[in-house]
């Protein structure tokens, strides 16, 4: 069970003066149960790659298969395969349209032809996942909510489709730290409970380090690095810096502390880990 991407290339606005190559010969496989972070600069092709993973964009060359079904076709199996891949776009709250929160979240499940009973259960589950109380919110208008709450409704709208592969494009952009943490906590809960693949697209190396097991670094439409998060930080620091990225702050700080003579064992992927390591090194714990 996996998404397979074989040698895809994509060109925006082909044959006009605005022609721009967004992806060049990208190959990768994402297995169910993986938590992958795609990281790279603006314009490196992250979002374009994501839109290929469920057939919203059709590659100029190469192919994308979800659970063995090539997304290029038109049949019913292709439609079902596409439904297995959910995408939460950047600023997903901008896609909200329905009169009530219930209706908006139910849009996806209804489109996959579920019966109303089932739809309701899925909406309930999805709302629970994103931390919105069903009885309190279901019949409210989504447009009266705060930005963070609206985003949760939009995310629930994708989660309600119960995708096997969940793509999130910058889910934390423009949110305050509290909402940001809430969204990631809920995302991890979905990830752990349903054994799905999560593909997180982000600018922030800290986010990637904290949550992802595997790191895909994109640069100029190509995959520059593909590897386990901890190994990438250990072995590919040079390549990371070459494409204008760097290791997370916690690792940089570890290096500085080591240079000052503090003996820290291990790799601190998050602030919390670093605190633990420092405590250990100082013999405080």
């Amino acid at each position, binding site marked *: 069970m996996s998404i397979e991407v074989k040698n895809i290339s994509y060109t925006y*606005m082909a044959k*006009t*003066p605005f022609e721009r190559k967004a992806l060049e010969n990208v190959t990768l496989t994402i297995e169910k149960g993986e938590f992958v972070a795609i990281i790279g600069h603006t314009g490196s092709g992250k979002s374009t790659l994501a*839109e290929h993973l*469920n057939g*919203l964009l059709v590659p100029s060359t190469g192919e994308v298969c979800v659970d063995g079904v090539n997304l290029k076709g038109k049949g019913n199996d292709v439609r079902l395969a*596409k*439904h297995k*891949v*959910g*995408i939460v*776009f950047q600023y*997903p709250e*901008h*896609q*909200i*349209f*329905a009169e009530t929160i219930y209706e908006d979240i139910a*849009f*996806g499940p209804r*489109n*996959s032809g579920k019966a109303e009973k089932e739809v309701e259960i899925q909406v309930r589950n999805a709302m629970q996942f994103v931390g919105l109380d069903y009885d309190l919110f279901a019949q409210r208008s989504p*447009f009266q909510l705060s930005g963070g709450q609206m985003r949760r409704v939009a995310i629930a*709208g*994708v989660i309600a*489709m119960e995708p096997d592969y969940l793509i999130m494009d910058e889910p934390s952009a423009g949110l305050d730290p509290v909402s940001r943490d809430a969204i990631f906590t809920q995302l991890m809960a979905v990830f752990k409970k349903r054994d799905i693949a999560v593909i997180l697209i982000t600018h922030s190396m800290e986010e990637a380090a904290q949550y992802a097991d595997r790191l895909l670094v994109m640069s100029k439409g190509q995959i520059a690095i593909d590897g386990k998060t901890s190994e990438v930080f250990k072995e590919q620091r040079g390549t990371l810096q070459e494409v204008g990225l760097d290791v997370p702050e916690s690792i940089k700080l570890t290096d500085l502390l080591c240079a000052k003579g503090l003996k820290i064992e291990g790799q601190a992927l998050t602030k919390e880990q670093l605190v633990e390591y420092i405590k250990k090194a100082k013999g405080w714990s």
Partner: protein
Amino acid sequence: MLADITLGQYYPGTSFVHKLDPRTKILATMSFIVAVFLAVSATSYVILVSFVLGVIFLAKLPVILVVKSIKPLWIIILLTMCIHLLTGQGEVIWSWKFISVTKEGLSMGVMMSLRLVLLLIISSILTFTTSPIVLTDGIESLLKPFKRVGVPAHELAMMMTIALRFIPTLLEETDRIMKAQMARGAEFTGGNIIARAKNMLPILIPLFISAFRRADELAIAMESRCYRGGEGRTCMHELVYANRDILAATGIIVLILFIAFLKWGGELCAI
């Protein structure tokens, strides 16, 4: 899918036509439109069509791009053609049951649809070769003399600039919303007209909301940079006529005179 709409999109270049002053181009386009309505004979249409082809060549525009600009209106063009074909009076050249096509109807139909095509193409050429900003600068400058009779030239131009500026943004937004809804299994094709209209709601509502939001943000951004209308505002790029504008103006005047001569020349000679 939405990238196919080309009307009103600038095609960058450095050709003779691109470099013309926007005022020249606007006036020339308007004159050409007058010429199209003056043209009645087949000869004048041949001249008009070759003029348009000449301009396309001069502007170094890909022909496909120009042809594509007809796409949004091709149904109307076809309809015009059919109505004239079927309702013309005169010498019958082909008939089947109650349908008959007359020679007059045919020539009228061809003429009318050719007119539409020419109008569309010439105005597309204007927008292909002139960036929206320059275009509105030109319009503002042309409207200035009418300020005394109460035409708010600057405000009109500013509204147009903003509208034009937001066409691509809204298209992009539409594209994004469509993708987001498609990712949730929405389908926009198929079904009868009512079902289709209903399918459009998940796109239209977010689009309107974002348009209002953008308008709000823009208004605040403009006010916070002390925008207060056209009073005392100066231009960063002053428009200046060059020699090539005189050349182009001569060209279009000759064209108009020629077409006018073809229409009325006979009568003039008779006098």
